[in-house]
């Protein structure tokens, strides 16, 4: 079942994101040929001359492509991780919803108040959402997958209510900005956003990949994991926090693009199976590839850009 040859899979998982990155940089309102990209990089590194396309590639398209790759990789890995530890393919939808609403609340609060930066506010609210979810899920004493999912629904509903209130009370001139953020704002990403979100996203991604065998054990069942010497609750909290921090950091920078966390893990399973050692690293690659291709289509398929969330 699926495409299981080890070397062929590995090759595809390395090459596919690179090809998708190249495609993403080349397509757009001003199409580029792939051969121009190495030329631009060489000229940039050697400082030879200012090419006419340098601004377009290095300051508009490249940060967007890198952010799309980082976003897709993060959502792919965290989606697969949360599916495993919560033993449901649907949990990533709730994760997206919680972080969407919380980040939305944070960013729009700061947008309206103008007190602190949008990104800081959004991230703070995302951390609040994670904290509330884990706290509520402990109400009955244990941190089981069911309690986390239910707590996530509660927190999601809470922030959805606040977000609706913000949208209702927003100034008319701010409404389009709000909708744009909800739809994913890769087109507004700069190098500042990439540098802001990359450290925490990489820490979260690396953390869950290093813990992939523990993630697999949690997916087998709590009793069995405990019987095999694991501290199930502690390890579930660690993995959940790592995944949530990674998602928070990219959502803060680029808005909401949620379907990647559901589709990428399933596609990855079709390709490499559920092999616990390969699933998470493969989800990283396929998530990045998927979003790069989708965003490339979103910015080129029509005369104006379609938000990639749609």
């Amino acid at each position, binding site marked *: 079942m699926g495409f299981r040859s080890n070397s062929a899979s590995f090759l595809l998982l390395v090459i596919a994101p690179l090809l998708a990155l190249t495609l993403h940089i080349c397509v757009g309102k001003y199409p580029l040929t792939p051969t121009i990209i190495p030329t631009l990089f060489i000229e940039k590194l050697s400082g030879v001359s200012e090419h006419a396309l340098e601004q377009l590639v290095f300051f508009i398209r490249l940060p967007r492509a890198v952010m799309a790759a980082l976003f897709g990789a993060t959502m792919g890995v965290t989606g697969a991780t949360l599916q495993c530890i919560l*033993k449901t393919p649907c949990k990533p939808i709730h994760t997206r919803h919680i972080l969407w609403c919380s980040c939305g609340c944070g960013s729009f609060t700061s947008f309206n108040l103008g007190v602190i930066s949008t990104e800081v506010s959004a991230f703070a609210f995302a951390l609040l959402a994670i904290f509330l979810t884990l706290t509520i899920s402990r109400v009955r004493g244990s941190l089981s997958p069911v309690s986390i999912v239910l707590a996530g629904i509660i927190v999601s509903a809470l922030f959805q209510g606040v977000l609706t209130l913000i949208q209702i009370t927003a100034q008319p001139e701010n409404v389009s900005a709000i909708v744009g953020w909800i739809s994913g704002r890769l087109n507004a990403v700069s190098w500042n956003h990439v540098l802001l979100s990359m450290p925490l996203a990489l820490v979260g991604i690396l953390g869950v990949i290093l813990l992939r*065998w523990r993630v*697999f*054990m949690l997916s087998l069942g709590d009793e069995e994991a*405990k019987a*095999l*010497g694991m501290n199930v609750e502690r390890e579930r909290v660690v993995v959940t926090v790592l995944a949530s921090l990674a998602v928070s950091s990219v959502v803060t920078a680029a808005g909401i693009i949620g379907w990647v966390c559901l589709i990428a893990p399933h596609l990855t*399973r079709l390709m490499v199976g559920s092999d616990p050692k390969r699933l998470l690293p493969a989800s990283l690659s396929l998530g990045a590839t998927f979003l790069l291709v989708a965003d490339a289509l979103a910015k080129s398929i029509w005369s104006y850009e379609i938000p990639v969330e749609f």
Partner: protein
Amino acid sequence: MIITVESLTFCYDSIPALRNISIEISGGELVTILGPNGSGKTTFLKCLCRLLKPKAGYICFDKQPIWRMKPKCFAQQVGYVPQIHSPSFPYRVIDVVASGRTPYLSALATPSKEDYEIAYQALEAVGCRELAERLYTQLSGGELRLVLIARALAQQPKILLLDEPTSHLDFKNKFMVMHTIKSLVKKGVSAVVSEHDPNVAVASSDKVILMKEGNVIAYGKPDEVVNEETMKILYDMHVEVISLTNPQLKFIAPKMLNIQ
């Protein structure tokens, strides 16, 4: 490994499930816990493998209190096969068996080649080597049970605790699983098994524990403890113990009631 249980008491909320159980189980034997539904068999096994913490009393393995042992050290000595296992994702059988090596791994490690070799040997020991590359969601009930036993074996334990390993299995698979457990006991692993069917218990066990309503009412060799009187006390029904052509084999048959 000698298991010593002293004054073990456990309650679910305020409802007692185990009442002041004291028993000593010798090593190198297949011991079956026999009892009706709700007698406390599963609770007793879960207390033995530290999944439940008793309200009172203590359990020692080779005179060492089990709750003072580190979880990893305990898991390296005790293998547990659950009653119910719901496959969540289509993992390969060999990966599921290799999960039994987790007590020997650090937090960031994955099983090595040597660990996978031990997993293959565990599958070999239960006669399921050919299942290694299959997806465990596609296995039959008997095959899945044997795979879970292989996983417990991959822990290289001194003792196996199996919760109703023959439940939901057909006539042949019941005895096949018990035969496999018996052969493992002959290789030096102790086993404590909970069971519903007295015939399965009598046919394969070295010792039998009879439990009812959280109490141990008898413990000893099958010949000594499984008889018409004890079955009447245990299941509140009349049975007839029939000796078969092989004098070591007995069959416990219910006496059919007059149905009107």
